[in-house]
């Protein structure tokens, strides 16, 4: 698992505010009501072919983000770690995700913002 840490407080940018006003992606479920709204690119992932998604954390300039995914029905995860990098304030790019089987996958994000830690979940169906 790879983690990218962007430290330091940065003011909310206009571009990020715009991104969060247009939540056209897959909205993630957080474990805490205080967690910022988060969503990812809403796509249909290919089976066993690498793909990328972008995570948006609304109202968040910097964070530590880790990503993993599991296939609950089969009790297994991914065969590869995923590279995570911050692309702009509040947006993070996850590269070379491989869901190696068709079916339902659960996306798992762990996010650290300052001293607060949040977990997010989402689901994607591989045809």
């Amino acid at each position, binding site marked *: 698992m790879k983690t990218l840490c962007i430290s330091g407080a940065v003011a909310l940018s206009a571009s990020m505010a715009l991104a969060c006003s247009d939540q056209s992606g897959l909205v993630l479920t957080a474990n805490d009501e205080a967690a910022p709204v988060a969503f990812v690119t809403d796509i249909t992932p290919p089976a066993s072919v690498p793909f990328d998604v972008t995570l948006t954390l609304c109202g968040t300039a910097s964070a530590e983000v880790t990503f993993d995914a599991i296939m609950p029905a089969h009790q*297994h995860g991914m065969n590869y770690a995923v590279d995570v990098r911050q692309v702009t304030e509040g947006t993070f790019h996850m590269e070379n995700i491989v869901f190696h*089987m068709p079916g339902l996958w659960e996306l798992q994000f762990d996010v650290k913002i300052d001293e607060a830690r949040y977990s997010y979940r989402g689901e994607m169906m591989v045809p």
Partner: protein
Amino acid sequence: MRLLLLLKQAVLLAGASTATQADILLSDAEIAQTLQHGPWPQVAQTDPSNRFSGNPNAIALGQTLFHETSLSLSGDLSCATCHQPEQDFTDGRARGLGKALLKRNTQSLWNMDQFRWFGWSGDTDSLWAQSITPLFHSDEMAHSPQSLHGLMLGHATREQIETLTGPLDTVSPEENAANLGKIIAAYVETQRSGQTSFDRFRDALAVDDLATAANYPKDAQRGLQLFLGEGRCSFCHSGPNFSNSEFHDAGVPYFLAEGGVDEGRHAGILALQSSPFTLNSAYSDDPEKTGAWAVRNVRFNHANFGMFRVPSLRRVMHTAPYMHDGSLPDIAAVLDHYNTIDMERLHSDGEAILRPLNMSQDQLDDLAAFLATLSDDG
């Protein structure tokens, strides 16, 4: 009168359409799943990590080297000794025979450009690196980089090789090996299987041509339904090549008859991570290092022990015996294996995919009929 005739024709056409639809047993969901297994053949692409990929001179020289017994230290083994082109690049044996009995079944070499990993345990991440492996294996061609370099300096093909690579005496033994692997791979990657009756069925479904799709036999359709559903086969045998190119525990024993174990993917990752010949290495010709993410990011898990790469099912009826150790002599034995799989053999903390299928003989026959339609491309 004319109106009556038109009415009769309309009734006849409606009847034909209904009959055609009745000939397609698959549900809409199953048709959607079926479309994921194509189109075929896939568009051939050159390998950016191999500068000889697609080069006609390299392909021709690679074919020569593939059959060249002088590439073995003993002078009596070539790639084609085990990967016999007239036997679908297999040898028909349970386990390969080099200078000694090898641990694993000889895999076919069709459609190698469709895989992410190579060999039963994925020791390599490119076809050219895989082509080097038997050259240095002590029970196969048994060279060292130095002895192979020395051989090629005096080899009959030296001039042809140098036309592609430049002077042989200025390259290191390792670079010489990488170049040979790439030339052989340039030939092997051209071995692509053709369109089968399944592919014609799939393509007809893709364009709603039910009349053509109806030519696909009913038993194969029932087998396809089992393959996609109750059999759970398509979880691993996915995509146009009927392999997800990843590793799974199929419940085949990994103990060797002569003692010891075959660690499968566990050993494969260790070999991969210690190899100088990966897509992330200086021997890759791709400045973008396309595909190197896999070797950089592959996870080393406890469950890798005893896992082997999912084979493609294309031309599967021609590549017996089956499984990593060749322990199952025919397709009927493979289907029986999954029908009565020993759950005690599987990792207790492994994937929850396999379980005894408990299918009837008619169902197993249908599955075999479907598999045969992946193998009838001539």
